[in-house]
């Protein structure tokens, strides 16, 4: 399975994601430069975390105009696998590949901490290695992760099972305190209707080795990899 990790100016989890895919998950992995028009035949495109273009306008707002995004959109529309992590999720929202938008965290501060998220739907290419209702411990690190979408969109998301992860407490209960950034419906991760594009705020690449406190993030990478096995 070949992964491509996109580098935007200001991406800063690009190396982390590359390292985990290559050294921990032992997958063929390559960087994709935002100015090029070449996806290098990858099977899965990852839009990594960071501050593309400083997030100066809005998170992800400028990255969506990168030349490479034309190819990414085409790839995605043809059913290619795309995973957006944190800033990558924000780019997917800006691109309209996933519905909704992000507001500042409810306490108006950047938040970096381990959180728990619950697998709401394990029948996707990104979560098939997890169990429904399973609680994963994965860190978040963002300023704008407070998910919002119009009520009818939320209805659709629910009806289609597009909500993949929700913030919860260690026991898997949803509550206001566990929903650290204030997201609607405690949403931490989404897929599109065809199930080939996922965005998530937590960083699975930061939870792929026990030395960093959790390996739960590997479930996501394992799910993706298993697709072609």
């Amino acid at each position, binding site marked *: 399975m070949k992964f491509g990790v996109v580098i935007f100016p200001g991406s800063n989890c690009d190396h982390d994601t590359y390292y985990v895919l290559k050294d921990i998950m032992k997958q063929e992995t390559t960087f994709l430069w935002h100015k090029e028009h070449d996806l290098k035949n990858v099977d899965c495109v990852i839009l990594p975390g*960071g501050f593309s273009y400083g997030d100066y306008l809005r998170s992800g707002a400028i990255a969506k105009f990168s030349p490479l995004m034309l190819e990414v959109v085409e790839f995605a529309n043809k059913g290619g696998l795309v995973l957006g992590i944190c800033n990558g999720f924000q780019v997917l929202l800006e691109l309209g590949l996933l519905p909704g938008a992000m507001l500042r965290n409810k306490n108006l*501060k950047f938040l*970096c901490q381990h959180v728990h998220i619950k697998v709401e739907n394990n029948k996707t290419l990104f979560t098939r290695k997890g169990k429904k209702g399973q609680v994963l411990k994965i860190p978040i690190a963002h300023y704008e992760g407070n998910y919002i979408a119009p009520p009818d969109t939320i209805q659709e998301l629910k009806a289609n099972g597009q909500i993949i992860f929700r913030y919860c407490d260690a026991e898997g209960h949803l509550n206001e305190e566990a929903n650290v950034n204030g997201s609607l419906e405690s949403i931490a991760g989404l897929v599109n209707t065809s199930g080939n594009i996922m965005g998530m705020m937590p960083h699975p*690449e930061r939870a792929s080795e026990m030395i960093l406190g959790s390996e739960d993030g590997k479930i996501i990478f394992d799910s993706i990899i298993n697709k072609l096995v």
Partner: protein
Amino acid sequence: MIDKKILDEHNLTVEEYKRIVQLIGREPNITELGIFSLMWSEHCSYKSSKMHLKKLPVRGKNVIQGPGENAGIIDIGDGMAIVFKIESHNHPSFIEPYQGAATGAGGILRDIFTMGARPIALLDSLRFGPLSKPRNKTVMEGVISGIAGYGNSIGVPTVGGDVYFNGCYSLNPLVNVFCLGIAEKDKIFYAKAEGAGNLVLYVGSKTGRDGIHGATMASAEFGEDLEQKRPNVQVGDPFKEKLLLEACLEIMARDLVVGIQDMGAAGLTCSTTEMAAKSGSGMEIDLDLVPQREEGMTPYEIMLSESQERMLIVAKKNKVREVQEIFSKWDLDAVIIGHVSDGDRLKVKAGGETVVDIPVDAVVNLCPVYERESVIPSYMESATRLDPLPLMENYDQTFVKLLSSPTLADKEWVYRQYDHMVQVNTALLPGGDASILRLKNKKKALAVALDGNSLYSYLNPRTGGKIAVAEACRNLACVGARPVGVTNCLNFGNPEKPEIMWQFKEVIEGIAEACKTFDIPVTGGNVSFYNDTEGISIFPTPVLGVVGIIEDMNKALTPGFQEEESSVILLGENKDELGASEYIKHVFNMEKGRPPQIDLNKERQIHEFCLEAIALELIESAHDVSEGGLAVCLAECSFFSRQKIGFSLNLHDDIPPDALLFGETQSRIVVTAKDGNSKKLLELAEKRKVKATEMGKTGGDRMIISHLDKKIIDVSINEAHKAWKESIPEVFRMR
């Protein structure tokens, strides 16, 4: 022409001016005067501190670069080197907390990647006035979001630091930022400008009228006329710096660079003159070629501007194209502004005319050095006297109250705003004694700690200096790391006041003695004088940053209790020392007494013992006793344990209970050991002549301390934890 008024504006004395005239053989023009004023400012020339800094030990077998470059470098084996340094950004952070702190982080990051190292960690040492004053809250909130704003964006984790609160920082907060980078040992770059004919490239942001006279501002006291002296504080651009970082590391990896220097305080002036002086070369630049953000800038302004996110690069002529291509890939311009020349002069042209022509050596190296007068401060005698304090029946309430003192309380509110995990190396998250950074695919790991208690230094500067080093090293020992190098940031008042100079001398001598005893080289640092506002000086505040190596990452320890029924053992000795403690400060509102004494050899023995016990896997947790004393140390061991394990201890020391619980006697570490190991540990301690006392056992959900069989503390963990955890967030809670 140049008169006394102009000299005053440039913070130069008449004698210094005479020396300039003598050195260049004529009267300088205003641009040249500006250049001298910057480079001869306290901030750049270290004219008041140089004589004393010489006392610090700088040699060691693994030192690749000691003081004198942008950062210090230590060889850590396997072809790798660590590059680290700490810097202050105190004045700007008071004027504009967010941008002041942000550009502070930006500056120290540049110092590290300028040398060819990828920054892997930031730590910040912060000092604020009490949070009861709204202004102090605003400053703290701004400073923390500023560091977060810069560090998070550029993708370097802020993995630790410290925060203290004291009235002396109300008008003069301290913001010291430490950065650690990793480089290949044989790919290190210096601020050199060798080889006549090589080209000088300017990269990064355009030059504006930013912070003109920032360095001279950092060299003068703030007074009522603050308003006028207020310079343009710079606005940081972490995005631009991220591009600079990647582009610089890329050209360095490809070996296209002769020398490189960031433009921090003193901008083009500093980078051109220093690079030339270090290589015994000259340099010629043309200011018309310098990218400018504003119109009509004079040569004076361009040379003195402190615009951020800029670098000066010297490249071989035939490599310039390649350098420019790489910068352009990262959307940056690299503009040729001049060349290296034979001789020893900096020649600057503007509008076709020569506007500066001066010998670089005079600018960089020939600033007068002062041995300023020093005298023992008059406060010392009365401040170090402490009358006996009333004893209490039990200390439950006092203990909980002390845990909520902002200086001791949980700092998660702070570090949660910092991305402390990016780069996936942070093996021990902030909150513990030292931060641990694993090295990918290596058994070895790095540990870093910052320390500096200014109340100790106020009441006994020499001891304060020693303790700052000792405590940082003790923190490293607790996680299993051996110190390999030290950097330090010395924050003091106005050195022209003899009492301040005395504090400074004493602190340095204390630091020097400790570093010698522990056998660790000082590889660099920073001095920040003139931390006074309206005539009031801050407490002398040395901040020590120590980096250590953990040989086997799998053996690294954390402070939290690991399981129930383990023996809780104290390494070291309890003494009757309550002076300068957080207890008397927070509970009795006094900043008095003698700070704890320290025997450096004993201290070292304790560190060695702790390291040995860790290597032999005899202990399962370790936490050092510092501010708040033994009781607070133990509480933290419970708070840091995953299951919030309590303890029940009985102490037999023949000292009053308040000193026993809250005294800050040095050279103590609390460790835990499983049943089978505790005996072995005690035996080993006896062999090593280290005092070790089994105090009791972990377990339960209460924290119980008895003294001579009488309970003096019995508190539920939940209650104590809440006080500790909620104290700072409570202050900032949104209404």
